[in-house]
């Protein structure tokens, strides 16, 4: 599940930098997408891990199994980017309606932040350890409306 992946991700960032400081800029772990190739300073990795764990405690989500670390999951899609989030959006349209006309930051299957102000949503996501948030607007229309670009 996405939440677990995030903890595994941050834990791996911490481990990679505490065990091999000289290799901190080298990607050592790829839990789910190419965001993980981003190097982090160790304090940021620790902070991200701590904040992810806090979310888990609040949501009462079971955290991590050793098998996740032994064989991290990679996206099966050839496009390989945010496929889990897209699938979640496809299958949770009614839940998304609760965030109508808002910006939403989604990580895996978890909504990290939402609100009317995109900058606030991004800031909240980053404060929770999601350094590269996936952010989108939940646009609602009523009646027979055809959207065009502008």
């Amino acid at each position, binding site marked *: 599940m996405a939440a677990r992946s995030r903890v595994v991700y941050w834990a791996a960032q911490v481990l990679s930098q505490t065990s091999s400081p000289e290799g901190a800029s080298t990607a050592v772990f790829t839990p789910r*997408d*190419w965001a993980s190739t*981003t*190097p982090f300073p160790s304090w940021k990795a620790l902070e991200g891990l701590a904040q992810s764990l806090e979310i888990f405690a609040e949501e009462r989500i079971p955290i991590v199994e050793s098998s996740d670390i032994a064989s991290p999951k990679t996206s099966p899609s*050839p*496009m*390989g*980017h*945010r496929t889990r989030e*897209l699938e979640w*959006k*496809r299958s949770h*349209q009614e839940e*998304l*309606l609760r965030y*109508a006309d808002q910006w939403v930051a989604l990580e895996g299957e978890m909504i990290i932040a939402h609100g009317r*102000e*995109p*900058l606030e949503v*991004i800031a909240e996501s980053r404060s929770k350890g999601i*350094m*590269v*948030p*996936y*952010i*989108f*607007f*939940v*646009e*609602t*229309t009523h009646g027979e409306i055809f*959207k*065009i*670009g*502008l």
Partner: protein
Amino acid sequence: MIAVTYEHQVPYNYDLRGISFPILILRLSLPGQVEPALDIEAYLDSGAEKSLIEGSFATALGIELLSGRETKFVSTNRSEFIARLHRICLSHPTIGSFDLEVGFSTASIARNLLGRDFFNLVQIGFRERQLTFYISSTP
């Protein structure tokens, strides 16, 4: 007979009405930098001359939005709104990375648009009946 070969095929996405539309999720960052970055959705819009992105995203990347050159985007009913031009990097893990000068809106917009300036950097084709588009990194 003309045949064009594509490297990737991407199914359309769906909005809350169940209407399908072609989008790409791209990573937005400053050229030559990994962070700060955002993953954003953008509509593929072959009718747009230039790509247009929500202005707040520029601020989130550390760009001073109003420092960019001012330009106008004109809609089909001739209504205009102001955007500021900034060079950014749009990247995708399998398609590639593209440095591009895009417009950042000075008012809030609901949809980011990838226009013909982006299409100029890739090869792209649509099969509307199959609700799929095809894309290659070589234009």
